[in-house]
């Protein structure tokens, strides 16, 4: 694709690396600048958790609702499905009817999975 030719650099991975480093540079520069000009004061009360004014009771990195975990698992299932569907999606036209049948089996199993999760009540927030 001729469209890309930013400065004639053809290597996209290099450009992605440049973008990544730009992100790092933005955070690092701004932090450095803030470190230079922002005031500093020391007060033991400041280091406390911003919760409710009285000292925090109990740890905060504790157990949490299992519901989040359930949705994470469901997400994993469907996201991997989407990833598998992408390469097929590009070639749909060429593959035609045969490709449709083979993907229908894969797709059907995943829809069955969704129906199963739905019937089991996994989609209800408790």
């Amino acid at each position: 694709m001729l469209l890309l030719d930013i400065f004639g650099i053809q290597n996209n991975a290099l450009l992605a690396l440049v973008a990544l480093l730009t992100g790092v540079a933005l955070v690092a520069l701004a932090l450095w600048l803030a470190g230079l000009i922002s005031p500093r004061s020391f007060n033991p009360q400041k280091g406390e958790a911003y919760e409710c004014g009285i000292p925090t009771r109990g740890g905060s990195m504790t157990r949490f609702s299992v519901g989040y975990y359930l949705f994470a698992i469901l997400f994993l299932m469907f996201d991997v499905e989407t990833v598998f569907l992408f390469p097929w999606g590009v070639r749909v036209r060429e593959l035609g009817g045969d490709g449709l049948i083979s993907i229908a089996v894969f797709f059907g199993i995943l829809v069955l999975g969704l129906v199963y999760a739905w019937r089991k009540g996994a989609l209800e927030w408790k």
Partner: protein
Amino acid sequence: MFDFSIITEWLNNLLNSFLPGWLTTTIECVLIGVGLLLVYALLALFYIYYERKLCAAFQCRLGPDRVGPWGLLQSFADMFKMLIKELISLNHVDKFLFALAPYLVIIASMLAFAVLPWGNGLQIIDFNIGIFFLIAVSSIGVLGILLAGWSSNNKFTLIGALRSGAQMVSYELSVGLSVLTMVVFAGSMSIGDIVQAQDHLWFLFSGHIPAIIAFIIYLIAGTAETNRGPFDLPEAESELTAGYHTEYSGIHFGFFYLAEYLNLFIVSGTAALLFLGGWMPFHIPGWESFNHIMDYIPGVIWFIGKAIALSFVIIWFKWTYPRLRIDQLLSLEWKYLLPINLFNLVLMVLIVVYGIHL
């Protein structure tokens, strides 16, 4: 239409004429980085101003109007205020993860930002799997938010981060599937190809009914992805003080703020490139003279205009719908959007394979 690669090629040849190859590449990489940084920061500042003005208009207020003409310098003032605020060092956080989280959030939005096509030849990264790359890198942001919430060691941030994680991963499915629907229609994952394919008619109009459904779903899911509008319960200020970034102060908080606004632009920019033709002008088949007039407007203006118009819609959502509860939010995604999206994908595939016209 004006092709931006003319300028870049000229600069490239000029540098190559008196410098060794590796030095040219390095200089060009630095130039790209600086340009990216400037556009990123300026756009974020513009978006902060835009959102505040719009919110004010929706509430019959004036919004910022004291700093500079029409308050235009307000967001610069905000930025300086954030820079001169103290970075409070907390004694209960996980120091490494706490510092790492803003990096991840900013990197995710910067990488996604670099993929967007601004005009003819004005696109930094054009992988042949561009749109897939965009979805992949924008999901790194979830990681940053989860890390921020967990490492802050605070109950509010933990709940905020978990809500945000559940919400963002759930709605990522809808984003992925509606993008997949358009990939099936375009037959390519390269952003350049997708935009070129909309030369005559945008996908929203040429993609039959499935494209319209995918567009609506994409807008809803994109709003949820950016933690905005009716889906802002990760940072519901009345329940969780500020959600996952409660413990961040000064510019550390500013990074999350910056990334949030940039993500708004990225979501609307992606919608613009998938459904509204990216930098392609508005064409109506058969109206030759009309199409010629439209060609005179540069691609950059088309792209930014479309993105800003879509952002307007997303901000509009915020002031129209009340905030959802977490169970409503998850059932909206899993019980409505996901089945509709799967059905929509099948519809699109049938249209593409058998050439049915709806």
